[in-house]
């Protein structure tokens, strides 16, 4: 119980700081908005409205947005050694990962909502199964932060982490991105069974990577 309370405290602290210094959210939302706009201009309306293409670009943009938001979150922690202040607390190491995942998932829900609405409106995408779409997007958003946080923590003390984190994170994000893209595409085109199958896989990714993060991060942060 105390562990969950501490995770909630870390998440609340993170969200409060993000609200006051929303650089991570602003960067992520701007990035996803620009990508959606460029997509429709570059490939033309016919190709851009293809469910597979629109889904793939949405999730690619969200993957980069996750990396941006996570790196900004840890950059803020490194200023004035705030991260060390948290890690020095009893149970701080264990609460760090859970709190960050929770807070970043909430931030990404906001980013995905803005990006999703922009995609639907600008590309005039038809949505055959809206509830399935929401389930796939939510589970897809939950599947992204755990492994990105692990990568950022592993690269935390490296000078070149801004370049290294995307290189480390993107290959391991491929399975989640494929599942999220296929699930979104299925929900857009009316394949209920396909959408739910991919949603189940996304849930499994979330659980596996969360367990990995809970195991690795407390030791790696040392």
């Amino acid at each position, binding site marked *: 119980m*105390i562990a969950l309370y*501490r995770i909630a*405290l870390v998440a609340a*602290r993170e969200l*409060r*700081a*993000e*609200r*006051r*210094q929303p650089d991570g959210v602003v960067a992520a939302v701007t990035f996803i908005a620009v990508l959606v706009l460029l997509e429709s201009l570059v490939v033309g309306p016919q190709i851009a409205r293809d469910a597979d293409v629109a889904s793939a670009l949405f999730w690619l943009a969200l993957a980069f947005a996750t990396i941006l938001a996570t790196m900004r979150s840890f950059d*803020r*922690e490194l*200023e*004035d*050694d*705030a991260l*060390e*202040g948290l*890690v*020095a*607390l*009893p*149970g*701080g190491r264990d*609460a760090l990962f859970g709190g960050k995942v929770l807070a970043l998932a909430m931030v990404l829900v906001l980013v995905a909502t803005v990006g999703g609405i922009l995609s639907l409106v600008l590309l005039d995408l038809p949505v055959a199964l809206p509830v399935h779409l929401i389930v796939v997007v939510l589970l897809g958003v939950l599947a992204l932060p755990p492994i990105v946080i692990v990568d950022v923590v592993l690269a935390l003390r490296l000078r070149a982490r801004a370049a290294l984190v995307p290189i480390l994170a993107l290959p391991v994000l491929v399975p989640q991105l494929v599942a999220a893209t296929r699930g979104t595409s299925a929900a857009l085109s009316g394949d209920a069974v396909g959408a739910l199958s991919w949603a189940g896989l996304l849930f499994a990714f979330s659980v596996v990577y969360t367990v990995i993060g809970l195991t690795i991060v407390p030791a790696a942060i*040392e």
Partner: protein
Amino acid sequence: MRTVQSGASLHDATVVLDDRVILRAVNVVVGPGLTLVRGPNGSGKTTLLRALAGLVPLARGDRRLAGDVLYIGHRPMLLRGLSARENLEFFARFRGGDTRAIDGALRAWGVGEDMDRPVERLSAGERRRASLARVEAERVQVLLLDEPFADLDEAGAVRLRQTIARARDDGRSVVVATHAHPELDDLAKARIALDDGDATAA
């Protein structure tokens, strides 16, 4: 099995960072009262405190602790985007303590009027004061303070000396690493001299 009555201790502790030995087979037992850690720059003072706080891995030896530790390092360790009050409330709640002492502690340290401003808008000295207010707000048994006089003006230094004296009188274990500030000598119960990773009782 040996137990520690109070405070913190390192036994035969060696710390290696970036293939360099920073602490070499150090034996330190910190009990109630003030312990001063002295030594020139680069002698391992910060690493000794971080080892006591459990913030660096020991290549050899072990660390024992009785009670919670409050470690305040070179920098204030406050999260930007939050106010001083919000930062201190977070720390107190995380430890499961109450937050009633926070306002009083921040006022006592002269940050009362600025306690609701985001910490990035405070001066370095004000951030340091807000950080040191944790000593009074969190009431932790073992205090590890690394160069706590940095960024403080004369009034802040006097306030810090009073705070350390009060913590010592309350029976808390206080470890202060500093290469200066001889005015603490008369408060100290024990002294540790560090030289190139070797610790000796001074």
